């Protein structure tokens, strides 16, 4: 019987801990246990044998840390490890018995970007190296275990799927709050791992069985595949200076019966457990009924923290990250200015969006690269699931690959070429997909026609092994001003598609009102009717008060808002017809000459600065507002900073307020008046992942009218050089926080000197000093952000 048949026909047992047993045999703290596969094979073989005799069906190879980051002789270690396990299986179970060798894959010990320094694709490649060897050496399955981070788990699973056809199991480490170290809950992990096609999912390590009992149902109720539970022998505690785990084999096996009753069908142990733990667990749980998790048919997407279910409460998909019709957004894309986009993301989340649509398509930019960057950066500021919105299948694949979670894919349609491009991606990476009812002959004018296309899409998806629960049909809202029956057709489509096909629906609702005045009136009313008809998701503007009014009221009215709490929170913050609150807080202060704009900037009040500036440009010359008010206010704060009367937080608050004021004024400026003072590159050097200091400098330089090209953190010297050359840059700012990364700074300066001798280099960062700066050949050491600005002002950068 192969392992997949086995796990689908009876309770299956994993082995227990390896580390504790090796320590008992003399493994020293810090010694690499994987080396024992070669140096002490008999010890490893015996441990495997003991577990098999105790009743384990699956033994895990002694390869937890076997990856190329730690070992040069990977092939030798992995093949020895699999040999040791195979020999034990053959001896105890016979060659065709129910004993299986699981190639064990543990975490890499490095954090993936953006939080750490490891590229996602590098992680995939490191896992892939080990998995290819294991596949060649004849493992029966791959167990990816002790995963603390959903993103790393995704990298490992992708590597397994791309480099082997073996079954893949994956278990993660949950804490007592049922969260991974990086934040994911069981529902999010189930969505991600099942989407990637993992054969069994579960949890191991960190907790004992008692703490896991409560977490098991949370996974079982979300999982359609068998659930694995491999706890530690309780929690470690200190007894007379010795650390022991606090659960013995009897208690462990007792609780494991509860865990099996809660729905786990693959069980074993982790740290501190021994063959005795497994033997007793087998004895007590074998007689229990075997019940696999039911197929859940959930329509779900996820982020690195949580899952969003589609089909219960209406889901809001924020539409604002899309350049269509937005001048500022387009400019931000051309300027590589992600800050604007990130702010849109966070603001939509604050406004109540559940999912963020991400569309960065613009003919003149590299959409693929931009999509990857925006997805990765957005996931650093928002934990909402993303809807990846692009018509370019290459960009779609790249985005689905780097996305940390199970994405919503926007979109596929009824044309064969569209389905051929998108469905393989959905199958491989996992995802729910928006299906537009557009066929080869366009959009049918009847609900019947649209339903037929939806049905074809679902049938075609099934051929790829994609369940209909991952198809969300968008029957298309068409402009009512050009066809007054169009809303009726769309609404009828929603009704029959849900009724006949049993799938969920989504609409880009705002199309309905195109070409009409006060569009929100129509859109929000249409939205209300659509919700009542059964619409599950709306791609809409969460900043639209009218839309949010409908959404909040609908939920309260349809018993989808406990105690009307959501509605009350929303409605009690609304003062109908008043925007005066902003003005009232300004009081006279001695040092601003009675100028409310200056005062707002000095005090760091963003909203007020923006409102006041917007008001001023109606009656005054915008350049005058900048030169007579904003700049002097900024200077005052900057000077205070230099004189130690203003401190960093206040400086930055003022910078933010000045920025808000600039934005309000800029719209009134002509092109020539907007001219920048020149371009400056900023980067944290290779090896350094600290970017706070660099970000502060960026904010201030931007405030003073410079175009900042922010290359980010951990930037290789060549990237900085290439950018300086291609953009003809006269000033480069480099930041480093650690003494260990100062050499990377020196290397960067060397490259810059060779390729662009006229470019000045200013350096800064906590460990830098004038001496260091001189030593590595920088033009300027700036002790803080203001000094960088002052230095830039002395240079001719245009």
């Amino acid at each position, binding site marked *: 019987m192969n392992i997949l048949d086995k796990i689908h026909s009876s309770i299956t047992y994993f082995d227990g801990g390896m580390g504790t047993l090796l320590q008992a045999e003399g493994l020293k*703290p*810090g010694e*690499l246990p994987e080396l024992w596969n070669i140096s002490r094979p008999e010890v490893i073989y015996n441990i495997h044998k003991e577990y098999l005799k105790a009743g384990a069906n699956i033994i895990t190879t002694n390869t937890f840390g076997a990856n190329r980051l730690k070992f040069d002789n990977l092939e030798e270690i992995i093949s020895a490890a699999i040999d040791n396990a195979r020999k034990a299986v053959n001896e105890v179970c016979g060659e065709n018995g129910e004993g299986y060798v699981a190639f064990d894959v*543990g*975490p*890499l*010990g*490095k*954090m993936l970007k*953006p*939080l*750490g*320094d*490891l590229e996602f694709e590098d992680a995939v490649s490191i896992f892939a190296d080990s998995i290819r060897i294991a596949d060649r050496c004849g493992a029966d399955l791959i167990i990816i275990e*002790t995963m603390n*981070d959903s993103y790393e788990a995704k990298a490992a699973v992708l590597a397994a799927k791309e480099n082997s056809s073996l079954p893949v199991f994956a278990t993660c480490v949950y*804490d007592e709050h049922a969260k991974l*170290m*990086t*934040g994911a809950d069981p529902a999010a992990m189930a969505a991600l791992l099942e989407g990637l096609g993992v054969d069994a999912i579960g949890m191991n*390590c960190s907790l004992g069985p008692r703490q896991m009992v409560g977490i098991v149902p949370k996974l079982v109720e979300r999982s359609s595949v068998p659930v694995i539970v491999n706890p530690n022998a309780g*929690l*470690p505690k*200190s007894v007379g*200076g*010795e*650390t*022991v785990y606090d659960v013995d084999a009897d208690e462990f096996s007792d609780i494991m019966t509860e865990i099996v009753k809660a729905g786990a069908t693959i069980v074993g142990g982790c740290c501190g457990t021994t063959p005795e733990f497994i033997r007793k667990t087998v004895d007590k749980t074998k007689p229990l009924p075997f019940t696999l998790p039911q197929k859940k048919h959930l329509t779900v997407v996820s982020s690195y923290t949580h899952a969003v279910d589609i089909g219960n409460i209406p889901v809001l998909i924020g539409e604002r990250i899309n350049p269509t019709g937005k001048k500022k957004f387009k400019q931000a894309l051309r300027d590589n200015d*992600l800050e604007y986009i*990130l*702010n849109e993301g*966070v603001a939509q989340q604050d406004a109540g969006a559940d999912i963020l649509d991400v569309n960065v398509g613009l003919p003149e930019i590299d959409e693929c690269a931009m999509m990857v960057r925006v997805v990765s950066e957005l996931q*650093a*500021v*928002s934990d909402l699931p993303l809807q990846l919105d692009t018509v370019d299948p290459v960009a779609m694949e790249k985005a689905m690959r780097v996305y940390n979670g199970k994405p919503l894919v926007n979109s596929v349609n009824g044309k064969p070429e569209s389905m051929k491009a998108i469905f393989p991606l959905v199958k491989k990476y996992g995802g729910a997909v928006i299906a537009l009812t557009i066929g080869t002959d366009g959009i049918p004018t009847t609900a019947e026609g649209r339903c037929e296309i939806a049905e074809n899409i679902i049938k075609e998806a099934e051929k790829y092994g994609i369940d209909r629960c991952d198809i969300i049909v968008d029957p298309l809202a068409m402009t009512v001003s050009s066809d007054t029956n169009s809303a009726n057709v769309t609404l009828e489509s929603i009704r029959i598609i849900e009724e006949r096909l049993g799938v969920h629906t989504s609409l880009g609702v705002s199309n309905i009102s195109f070409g009409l005045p006060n569009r929100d009136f129509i859109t929000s009313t249409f939205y209300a009717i659509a919700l009542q008809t059964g619409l599950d998701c709306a791609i809409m503007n969460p900043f639209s008060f009218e839309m949010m009014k409908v959404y909040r009221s609908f939920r309260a009215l349809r018993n989808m808002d406990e105690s009307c709490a959501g509605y009350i929170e929303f409605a009690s913050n609304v003062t109908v017809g008043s925007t005066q609150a902003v003005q009232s807080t300004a009081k006279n202060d001695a040092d601003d000459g009675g100028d409310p704009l200056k005062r707002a900037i000095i*005090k*760091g009040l963003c909203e007020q600065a923006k409102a006041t500036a917007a008001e001023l440009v109606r009656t005054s010359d915008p350049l005058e507002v900048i030169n007579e008010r904003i700049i002097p206010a900024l200077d005052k704060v900057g000077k205070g900073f230099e004189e130690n*009367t203003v*401190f*960093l*937080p*206040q400086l*930055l*608050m003022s910078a*933010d307020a000045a920025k808000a004021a600039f934005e309000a004024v800029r719209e009134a400026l002509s092109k020539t008046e907007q001219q920048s003072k020149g371009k400056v590159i900023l980067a944290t050097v290779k*090896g*350094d*992942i600290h*970017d*706070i200091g660099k*970000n*502060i400098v960026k*904010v201030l330089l931007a405030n003073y009218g410079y175009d900042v090209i922010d290359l980010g953190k951990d930037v290789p010297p060549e990237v900085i050089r290439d950018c300086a050359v291609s953009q003809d840059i006269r000033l480069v700012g480099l930041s480093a926080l*650690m003494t*260990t990364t100062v050499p990377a700074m020196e290397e960067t300066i060397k490259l810059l000197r060779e390729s662009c001798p006229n470019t000045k280099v200013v350096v800064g960062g*906590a*460990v830098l*000093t004038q001496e260091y700066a001189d030593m590595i050949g920088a033009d300027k050491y700036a*002790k*803080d952000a203001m000094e960088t600005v002052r230095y830039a002002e002395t240079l001719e950068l245009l």
Partner: protein
Amino acid sequence: MMNIIKGRPENASPDLKEALRYMGYKGHTPDPDSMKLIEECKSELLKAVSPVCCYMYTEIRAISEDETELVFGKVKSRDLARHLKGCTGAYLFAATIGISVDRLISKYSRIKPAKGVITDALGSSSIESFCDFAELEITKDITQHCSRFSAGYGDFSLSHQTDFMRCLDMNRTLGITLSDSLLMTPTKSVTAVIGIGASNRTCASKCISCPNTKCIYRDSGH
């Protein structure tokens, strides 16, 4: 064998004075608007922290003027040897307040730099507070012990982070990872040696052993 202490958020409550020093206040008091923001960041930070530490005992096998032999091998460091002088053993110690703090800092440093700077400073103070708490817990029954001494202090090379990682199995027990340049993520993490058998306190503040005497963050007491 290893021990683990899981702390509560209040065990990692930042020391405001210390955090203000990291923000560059140099003994000055923040204006009320900044203070409000700092308080706001502090309460967000305390919601994000999940303090945890682990430690194990190691005998000090040999100690000379510039070398100490611990469980993982020899450490060439005059400063560490001086700090552990007279000790018979030591605890290897690692602690973190978790990756959610990194997320918070990285979010704000992208969209609201003032809050980014404040949260970063508060986070640095928060991990120190938790280390103080944990150090007290660990040494409560030990009469003679030294203050903690970290890789990176003085001439105790940062390269020993890899030894801490391995011995304490820090990735598995605490979720701590090491970058190529030996920086830990979560960034608000600490490793240290706590000597036992003597009570040297030469390094109550890490500033004193740092060669960068002009550092703007330097504790003014030193």
